[in-house]
């Protein structure tokens, strides 16, 4: 090998990167994620910029989507099916408090699961931890959530509902919703790269999941013996938590919320492992 230029002595002090065939189970490379935090910020910033570029439509959509769903639910379930929420909570605010975290979750899931495929030109041309893409999609949903939250405050004032001290737990339930969305997105986004026909199943999955979550109905409608099984659905835990924290509905808190949390932790860990194992081949397959 020709050595044409004098080696500079500082070179040997530089950090060495070793690229090898994939091996090992879980090596989260958290330090690397920290290094790329600015890029995460820029991905979120891009998503928001593009979404709110036509400001009127962007912000309106974030409000219209849950509000219209709430109106439809109020008519179909509140009036026609005559579902009465417990504790005398009016149906619109009852369903809206659940739709809020659900929209955060479903929006995040829908965006994040396609994030790798949509950004395929990036994945094949530049290196960065691929997890930034689904992570950015999940986090950027928080802005829509924040906007839609203002409507909830309006509804609560309108119906004279004062939150109890339980409202302090709200951030934890938001975190649980985000963690669930990320966990499922890790699986789905990697699946989407591998199986191109998988994306057709996601809307169906979301619809199914929504009805399995007590959003349009109170969890007290579920027969006692099934309630535990329903409680295993982390989103049921989130929705119940929202109703408890904001509307003071104690009965809505899933009986074994800790189980739901454990399930999310398992989903998230396995999702990270799967995602990381797939990560190295994304550029070859996508």
């Amino acid at each position, binding site marked *: 090998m020709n050595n*044409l230029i004098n080696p500079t002595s500082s070179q040997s002090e*530089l950090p060495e990167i070793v690229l090898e065939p994939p091996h090992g189970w879980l090596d989260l490379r958290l330090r690397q994620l920290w290094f790329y935090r600015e890029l995460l910020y820029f991905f979120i910033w891009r998503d928001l*910029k593009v979404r709110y570029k036509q400001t009127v439509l962007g912000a309106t959509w974030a409000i219209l989507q849950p509000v219209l769903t709430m109106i439809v639910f109020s008519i179909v379930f509140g009036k026609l099916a005559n579902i009465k929420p417990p504790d005398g909570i009016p149906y619109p605010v009852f369903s809206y408090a659940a739709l809020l975290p659900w929209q955060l979750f479903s929006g995040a899931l829908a965006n994040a699961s396609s994030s790798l495929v949509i950004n395929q*030109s990036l*994945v094949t041309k530049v*290196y960065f931890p691929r997890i930034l893409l689904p992570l950015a999609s999940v986090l950027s949903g928080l802005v829509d959530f924040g906007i839609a939250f203002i409507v909830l405050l309006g509804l609560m004032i309108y119906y004279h509902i004062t939150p109890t001290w339980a409202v302090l737990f709200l951030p934890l339930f938001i975190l649980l919703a985000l963690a669930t969305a990320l966990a499922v997105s890790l699986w789905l986004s990697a699946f989407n790269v591998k199986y191109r026909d998988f994306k057709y199943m996601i809307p169906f999955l979301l619809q199914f999941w929504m009805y399995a979550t007590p959003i349009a109905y109170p969890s007290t409608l579920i027969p006692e013996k099934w309630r535990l099984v329903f409680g295993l659905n982390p989103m049921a835990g989130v929705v119940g938590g929202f109703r408890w924290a904001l509307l003071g509905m104690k009965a809505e808190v899933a009986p074994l919320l800790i189980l739901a949390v454990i399930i999310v932790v398992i989903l998230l860990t396995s999702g990270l492992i799967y995602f990381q194992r797939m990560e190295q081949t994304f550029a070859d397959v*996508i």
Partner: protein
Amino acid sequence: MSDYAIKVEGLSKQYRIGRKLRYHMLRDDLHMAAVRLLDGLRVTRNASPKRKDLRDATRVWALKDVSFEIAPGSSIGIIGSNGAGKTTLLKIMAHITAPTQGRVRLRGRVGSLLEVGTGFHPELTGRENIYLNGAILGMRKQEIDRKFDEIVAFSEIEQYLDTPVKFYSSGMGVRLAFSVAAHLDPEILLLDEVLAVGDVNFQKKSLNKMGDVVRGGRTVLFVSHNLAAVKSLCQSAIYLEHGEVKYIGDVDSAIEAYLSVGELQSVQKVEIKANEKKSAQIMTVSVLDRTGAAAMRIAHDQPFSLSIQMVVREITPQFFPTIHILDSEFVPVISSSHFISAEESGLHSYSPGTYSFIVDIPGPLLAPGNYRISVNLTQKTRKNNWTFDRVEHVCPFEIYDNGSLLARYGLKWTGKLSLPLEWTCTKE
């Protein structure tokens, strides 16, 4: 040598072949799983070696046991014909794809530029895209802030900075993208075909900028089809063929090694191996003298022609063949596309089949010297042009002086053309 910037040890990469095999369908895999399950119930384990053979047959080695070391501060060109593994090598080093075997050691921050404008978003403005693209390429926000004015000045698009990129001409977009990339400041820079951007002036500017980068003591790995650019930027080169290193050494010897093999050798007519994956492909290229016979020596004052055969396998919209005649320094002397004539007749795509093109070159046109031919198939997309098939540096031929006045007076040719120019001489 223990002090290295890049050390590649026994690197290999295996790919599945066949474009249609690239992504799976879940329904197919479920089907296969069901079939395998049934097979497993019926057949004993003896059947498995056969299946392994089948599996190996659909895999190819894009790189095979590649090893080399690069000293810090050197600039290395990677050359080789299409499919030699150049881009795969770069993609592994850029951490985009993982090797199947072997390892790469890189000392220092790595910046890779495999494409100009990666991550540009059409809805965002030029200013916003500078930040986004910079971050994607690995710059910190602080760093972009610091270099912002320099980037803008280099791109020459100051007045459109707050216009969404979707309203940019393709030239402007490329200039902006290159400017961001050119201000990347890593210890190791990996470059793939990025110099062929913009108009001639901007290309020159880019090449100079790259020259500065190279002289700035960075380690640069440069993959290119443009041998002239490789020659001007790199002191040494690696010549790859079929995924193996054929030559490592100074750039001139590497280029010589590359040009002296197979299809690039002195043959009058090159025939390219069919590649069923390509929707359209150049199959043969030859230089014909005025009688229509394949030739390697042509008199400077005689017309001659290039003959190209192209096969179209499936309809590919809006593409066109282009020929380049390159001088001995691989600088194109003249280029011509069938695109221009095709647009006039309203023909936008070729239906599947085999096409023959004859490009007539008048004589006298080229000055005596040695030339080669490159042929590209380029698809015109909305934003830019994408060359999906190329045959490069083939059919070396010589234009010889066929008794010009210059020769008669014992003078040397200067310039690339022998096209006679009219002189008018009047005495005042």
